[in-house]
């Protein structure tokens, strides 16, 4: 049987080389189960990357049928094709430039009218479209009946009923695709027309554009999009047209600024006519599952309680399953690394054995120990997203997040940062706008992760005895205060652009698909190991080398130790001796390293340290531990997800500056009131 070639080259390259595969694009609004359809069709034959030059995920896969190979491109979920967001730009540019052989529009049968809006836009582009009428089961659950055959006749294009999350209708979809491409199915789509009162102005703009529209944009489509208020095409055409022509176009657009309302209105009227015979709505008074659940889940009091309950379960899972598994992995793999150093490399020079077992394997072990937490985190996030609950959690928390210029969608990633900052930053992917995604990623390191809490709890106990809990809670509060302050500053002063409008669909509830969640977890964990893991490994080796050389493992005399000693004056402002500074520096690899380093530097740490540090200095030290630059895994992920060294270094600089300022302030204030 013919198998598809490796997915190294993009469909664009294949096309120019004569294209030996059919290229099919999958389009749809958010929350229609598009990923599930994509996963069912391609299985593990998929390649996940980013769209060229964008931070938006691109998924390409293949499937074969009767020896024929099909490439499937998953386009980002969009409500329309006016360039309000990167997703919309990517989707329409892909179809215009690459001209796929077929576009499958996935729609949710339970929300058919709104979903068909995207279809009215897709039909204006130069590629044939068939309709995958997904979530027939959800529609039935809400009491809505849809007749695919009637819809097919009304629209004039093939319609395939599906319940992808129950694996129903996939074979029929593949069948329809192959028959359509073979030319065996009729295709005569009806398209909505623009209202008569805007027809004249549309033609006038079309005439003014002449042959100035750049490839691959069709002139008539550009005219319509300009009338809809598309800002990207506005920019493009302003640059393309001679100034006097542009002024004429601009005058027309200005006089018809409200055209979008008529255009969208006409599309919805057309849709209403199309679905009239095909959809039977529930009788008035019949209440669907979603409304019944939402009586509790979006209620201000009960909804908040439900959210707290769900979060409780998440943390319980993280701490009772994730943390022990993490420790177990650390012990087993750590023992293995030590064994390699002691046995296999027993004849090698000491530095080489240490490099392999402590540096390289130590770094690799650290990468692996993140896996259990990441699996739990992404399984939970995938589950909540796939059932439709995540949007409710965002609704409930929106009012708090609003203060930071964020929306409710940022709440879940930030909150789960208490477990670990790495998935918090990766989880920011669920947020639509780049601005909010960046802001969330930059705030995540302020959330005290489990690693930091372990160190802080232990140190607080060591220094403050009975007051330890109070101190630890105060420190968590301080971090959250700083998070809020930093958020407000970033939002108001530093990030370009306005906070995005809060418009969020609350999808109908439905049973999650284990396969979709499984692949979601798999993709994210692999992405972490491949990308962030590489940076972590390199950084771990570098830091190991700095703490090993030139003194053959004597950390006090190592380069790192020398840096610590050079920083002694800084330490003095905080009342900290240089070995404590070194311990702080080693926490860059992993937060728990602080304890290990203190153990190496002070033979009897538990008794020595409290005598060495005054209460003010101890407090300054713990605060510094909470605020100091995040661990290397977090930094690597931050770079990976923001795609920017500038913002990553900015984040490090801010954290370092805050550590110094607040550390010094606490010690000096403490000294003033006699605690120094």
């Amino acid at each position: 049987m013919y198998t598809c070639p490796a997915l190294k080259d993009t469909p664009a390259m294949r096309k120019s080389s004569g294209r030996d595969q059919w290229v099919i694009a999958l389009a749809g609004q958010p929350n229609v189960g598009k990923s599930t359809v994509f996963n069912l069709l391609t299985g593990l034959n998929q390649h996940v990357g980013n769209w060229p030059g964008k931070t938006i995920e691109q998924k390409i896969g293949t499937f074969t049928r009767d020896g024929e190979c099909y490439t499937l491109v998953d386009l980002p979920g969009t409500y329309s094709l006016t360039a309000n967001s990167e997703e919309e730009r990517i989707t329409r540019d892909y179809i215009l430039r690459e001209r796929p052989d077929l576009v499958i529009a996935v729609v949710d049968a339970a929300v058919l009218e709104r979903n068909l809006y995207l279809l009215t836009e897709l039909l204006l582009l130069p590629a044939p479209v068939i309709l995958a009428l997904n979530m027939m089961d959800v529609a039935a659950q809400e009491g809505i009946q849809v007749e695919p055959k009637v819809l097919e006749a009304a629209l004039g294009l093939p319609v395939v009923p599906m319940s992808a999350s129950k694996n129903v209708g996939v074979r029929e979809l593949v069948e329809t695709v192959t028959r359509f491409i073979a030319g065996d199915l009729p295709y005569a789509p009806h398209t909505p027309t623009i209202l008569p009162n805007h027809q004249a102005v549309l033609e006038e703009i079309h005439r003014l554009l002449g042959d100035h529209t750049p490839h691959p944009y069709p002139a008539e489509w550009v005219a319509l999009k300009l009338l809809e208020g598309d800002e990207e095409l506005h920019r493009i055409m302003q640059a393309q047209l001679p100034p006097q022509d542009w002024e004429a176009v601009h005058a027309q657009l200005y006089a018809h600024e409200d055209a979008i309302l008529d255009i969208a209105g006409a599309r919805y009227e057309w849709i209403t006519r199309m679905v009239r015979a095909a959809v039977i709505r529930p009788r008035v008074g019949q209440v669907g599952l979603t409304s019944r659940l939402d009586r509790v889940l979006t209620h201000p009091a009960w909804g908040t309680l439900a959210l707290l309950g769900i979060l409780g379960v998440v943390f319980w899972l993280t701490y009772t399953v994730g943390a022990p598994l993490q420790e177990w992995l650390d012990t087993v793999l750590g023992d293995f690394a030590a064994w390699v150093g002691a046995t296999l490399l027993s004849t090698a020079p000491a530095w080489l054995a240490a490099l392999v077992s402590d540096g390289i394997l130590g770094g690799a072990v650290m990468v692996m120990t993140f896996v259990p937490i990441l699996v739990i985190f992404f399984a939970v996030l995938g589950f909540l997203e796939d059932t439709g609950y995540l949007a409710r959690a965002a609704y409930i928390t929106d009012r708090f997040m609003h203060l930071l210029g964020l929306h409710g969608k940022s709440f879940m990633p930030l909150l789960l940062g208490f477990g670990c900052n790495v998935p918090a930053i990766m989880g920011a992917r669920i947020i639509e706008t780049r601005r909010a995604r960046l802001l969330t990623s930059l705030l995540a390191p302020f959330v005290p992760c489990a690693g930091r809490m372990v160190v802080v709890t232990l140190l607080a106990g060591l220094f403050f005895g009975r007051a330890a809990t109070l101190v630890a809670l105060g420190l968590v509060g301080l971090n959250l205060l700083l998070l809020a302050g930093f958020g407000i500053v970033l939002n108001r002063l530093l990030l370009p652009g306005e906070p995005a409008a809060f418009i969020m669909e609350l999808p109908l509830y439905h049973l999650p698909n284990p396969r979709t969640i499984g692949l979601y977890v798999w993709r994210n964990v692999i992405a972490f190991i491949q990308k962030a893991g590489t940076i972590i490994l390199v950084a771990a080796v570098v830091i190991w080398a700095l703490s090993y050389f030139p003194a053959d493992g004597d950390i006090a005399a190592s380069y790192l130790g020398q840096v610590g000693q050079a920083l002694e004056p800084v330490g003095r402002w905080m009342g900290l001796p240089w070995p404590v500074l070194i311990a702080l520096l080693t926490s860059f690899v992993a937060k728990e390293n602080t304890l290990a380093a203190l153990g190496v530097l002070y033979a009897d740490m538990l008794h020595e340290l409290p005598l060495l540090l005054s209460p003010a200095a101890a407090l300054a030290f713990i605060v510094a531990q909470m605020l100091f630059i995040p661990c290397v895994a977090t930094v690597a992920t931050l770079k990976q997800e923001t795609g920017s060294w500038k913002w990553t270094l900015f984040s490090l600089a801010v954290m370092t500056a805050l550590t110094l300022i607040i550390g010094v302030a606490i010690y000096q204030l403490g000294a003033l009131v006699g605690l120094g």
Partner: protein
Amino acid sequence: MLTLLNLEPGQTGLIRELHGGRGLVGRLAALGFTLGAPVTVVRNHNKGPIIVSLRGTQVALGRGEAEHVLVTLLTGATEAH
């Protein structure tokens, strides 16, 4: 005219005007907020976003955004939601 913020849960309004920038109006229109479309308010508390139901879907709107949607009251009858 009223804004969506003025409606109590269960009340339905017919959309008369959309205000705000082009981006906001475009996004709302694509979601089905078109002139004459009926919108039912599902949740509207003193703080935080509101939830409305239109064209068979529920949409959460920030208070700032909801203020840009002008409606006339269709009925005071309380619908089940």
